[in-house]
């Protein structure tokens, strides 16, 4: 198994390099240089800037420099925010993004899984219908709509419910809106997934066996059913991280949170190519590593997984 994961790790590194290369190619194939602005800069100034950022070097040398920087974990300077390094931006952006992301994750786990289980155990009862109705809304309504609704209802639009600040993370209450909006989709998805997986497991023969052997009902559920029901949920962790990541772009924009997603959107609006490139590579690397970790966790939970012939 160790061999398999070493192989996976090497593949992950190669994938990150391929993605960095593709991002580099894409960003350098954009017509006009990075200093092409609405207000045209004087020719001389552009030249100075290009020299300063080595943009006058041949493309292949720029690529070499970029990749070399990548190995030193150096993503280069921003072209728009003069004097700011991409690394600094990411370092600044990580804490708020990580905080709301982590809280969202906790919320998804502590609410989504129990809701799914309850819904499955009370199949076709009122509680099941309510939970499923909410979850269906949650997976279909985009997070930015949910976020704006939260602001409207709980941050001023309805005077009686004016409980939350409209933006920022300055007070603990400020976390509620962004975390809820960020978690909404995945929370609903996990609820639905847990429910259907639980229903599937409850129909399995081994549950009947456990009952036929007189195992107490709560133990049949808590031990035999839930562990099996959670296996498909683990496979969703990868897509869930992706959903939280991309969700954070809009959530941070709506709630004015100075996180990495907010910087990413800002860099897109400003056409700040090195920042776009840097954050993309950062996101990709983060995602790939997380998926790798999920696979390790998966192998620990499900003894049937064998790693002799790659993923099945």
């Amino acid at each position: 198994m160790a061999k398999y994961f070493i192989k996976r790790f090497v593949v992950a590194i190669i994938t990150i390099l391929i993605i960095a290369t593709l991002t580099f190619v894409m960003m350098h194939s954009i017509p006009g240089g990075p200093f092409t602005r609405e207000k045209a800069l004087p020719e001389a100034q552009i030249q100075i800037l290009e020299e300063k950022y080595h943009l006058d070097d041949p493309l292949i040398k720029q690529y070499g420099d970029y990749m070399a920087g990548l190995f030193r974990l150096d993503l280069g300077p921003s072209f728009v925010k003069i004097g700011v390094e991409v690394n600094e931006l990411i370092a600044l952006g990580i804490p708020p993004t990580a905080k709301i992301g982590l809280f969202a994750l906790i919320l998804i786990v502590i609410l989504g899984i129990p809701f799914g289980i309850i819904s499955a155990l009370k199949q076709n009862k009122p509680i099941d219908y309510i939970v499923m109705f909410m979850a269906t809304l949650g997976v279909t309504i985009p997070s930015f709509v949910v976020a704006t609704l939260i602001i409207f209802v709980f941050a001023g639009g309805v005077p009686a419910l004016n409980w939350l600040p409209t933006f920022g993370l300055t007070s603990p209450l400020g976390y509620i809106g962004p975390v809820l909006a960020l978690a909404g989709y995945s929370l609903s998805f996990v609820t639905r997934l847990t429910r259907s997986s639980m229903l599937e497991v409850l129909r399995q023969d081994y549950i009947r066996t456990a009952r036929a052997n007189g195992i107490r009902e709560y133990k049949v559920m808590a031990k035999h059913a839930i562990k099996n029901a959670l296996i498909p949920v683990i496979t969703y962790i990868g897509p869930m991280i992706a959903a939280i990541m991309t969700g954070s772009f809009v959530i941070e924009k709506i709630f004015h949170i100075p996180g990495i997603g907010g910087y990413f959107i800002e860099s897109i609006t400003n056409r700040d190519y090195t920042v776009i490139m840097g954050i993309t590579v950062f996101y990709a690397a983060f995602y790939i590593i997380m998926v790798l970790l999920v696979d390790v966790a998966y192998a620990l939970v499900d003894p049937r997984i064998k790693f002799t012939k790659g993923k099945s």
Partner: protein
Amino acid sequence: MGKILEVNNLHTSFFTHLGEVQAVRGSDFSMEEGDILGIVGESGSGKSVTALSVIGLIDEPGKIKEGDIIFDGKDLTELSYKELSDLRGNDISMIFQDPMTSLNPVFTIKNQMMEVIRRHTDMSKAEAKQHAIKMLEIVGIPEAEARISSYPHEFSGGMRQRVMIATALSCNPKLLIADEPSTALDVTIQAQILDLMLSLQKEIKTSIILITHDLGVIAEVCTSIIVMYGGMIMEKGTVDEIFYEASHPYTIGLHKSVPSMSRKSNERLVPIAGSPPDLLKPPAGCPFSPRCDHAMQICLELPAPMFDINKTHCSACWLLHEDAPKVEGIEKGEAKNG
């Protein structure tokens, strides 16, 4: 020896959104201690539902509508789920058709066996483990001590069924219900599992209910047989009576549709035409009447009562009535509840 199990007028139905599916409609039977009772019938005949009713594992939306199940002097239909659960795995055990799916894939054999043993006895962990290893050795698993820590997927189908049997017998049950225990296995493994069950039965003196659609299996191991069709018992008797003196057209039809060594080489297999009844709307009369070659007007209107042929043999067929025309191969009997 006394009666270990007595089932009276059992009705079990499933209340689905399409309506009531009457899976079992009035089963009566009993078995003596040490008996091996075979229940045969095609799928949907109610044989598995009968067994699940006995062990109290009829899931929603199913329900035992009426009837008594007297096990060891207690009426199981009166017990709460919890009281039943104390019996299950302890006094009554059950093993199922598909050993590939009947063990929980994410726990080791040791974990699953010890859980059952410790549930019903007050053995310590170490004792329970020793007992589990002993049980595995009894059912013929080599290197039981090492293999007990394996996961189910590391065992073959036959081995898994042995594990199931070991678990089921680990608390010395008085009654073992085996629902098609060998159907999902290779033919050679089938024989091994059946032999194992037979030898264990002699050793542990457990009574066994063996449910199967395979007449060959029944002939090999059972002492008495129940033939079920459409949720009702068609015929009851000893192995010899059912095999050589069958008096119900359905039983006779079953024999004709199965290949056998004693059959003459040019003799054809005769399938039973038609399909089993829809238990949402079971026929008013005998469930087999729509497919029966000898169906009479009365068969379509009224289910037949049990006609006693002798002390051990009885059959639910109107042809056994004194007024019925004579059909070759079917001897007249006496109505039981006349």
